[in-house]
């Protein structure tokens, strides 16, 4: 099965700084999605990037995808204390025409200090 693996495992920054999290995966994908999870809460979808896309923006979020390196990055610009959460990448394989089963990595725990 396909899984994303994030790094770093933990990241601590000051409010206003940018945060970059990386994700690597092993096999061909159709799309890659980033999710956020506040402690003890559900997963909130942030952004989806398809395998034929290289970069995508949503507000303060910027996601890149390099299929040749099997990696993606999530950049949060001008971070705020409220961005403190765990961030996960999840991948859907290319080989399941109907399935959209996502596999998650272990996540990056981001702490933004005020």
């Amino acid at each position, binding site marked *: *099965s396909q899984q994303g693996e994030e790094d770093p495992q933990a990241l601590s920054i000051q409010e206003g700084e940018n945060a970059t999290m990386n994700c690597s995966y092993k096999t061909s994908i*159709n*799309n890659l*999605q980033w*999710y956020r*999870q506040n402690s*003890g*809460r*559900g*997963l*909130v*979808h942030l952004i*989806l990037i*398809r395998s034929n896309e290289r970069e995508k923006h949503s507000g303060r979020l910027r996601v890149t995808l390099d299929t040749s390196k099997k990696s993606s990055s999530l950049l949060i610009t001008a971070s705020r204390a409220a961005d403190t959460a765990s961030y*996960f990448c*999840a991948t*859907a394989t290319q080989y*399941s*025409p*109907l*399935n*959209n*089963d*996502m*596999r*998650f*990595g*272990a*996540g990056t725990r981001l702490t933004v200090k005020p």
Partner: protein
Amino acid sequence: EPEVTQTPSHQVTQMGQEVILRCVPISNHLYFYWYRQILGQKVEFLVSFYNNEISEKSEIFDDQFSVERPDGSNFTLKIRSTKLEDSAMYFCASSGIGLGNTIYFGEGSWLTVV
């Protein structure tokens, strides 16, 4: 915005008892999922469900687990003969059909087996 709802939010059960976790997926979604997250660990895929049958399941989803869509709106996860190691947050999710559809997660049901 439509959302996935889960009940109960928290359940404590005795080891060996059966538990049913309930979910109401987003109404026009056709694909349903259960994931679990043991405290401090990553989100793990359990099972996906489409067209009234299991589409894919992980090695975690053994004979102890079963899923059902008893009516047009509910999607349940049954855990028979619970064990201590079943203690986890269980997330229900749903999506439209086909790759590239965002998976929407509920807030989770926290199961504690004592």
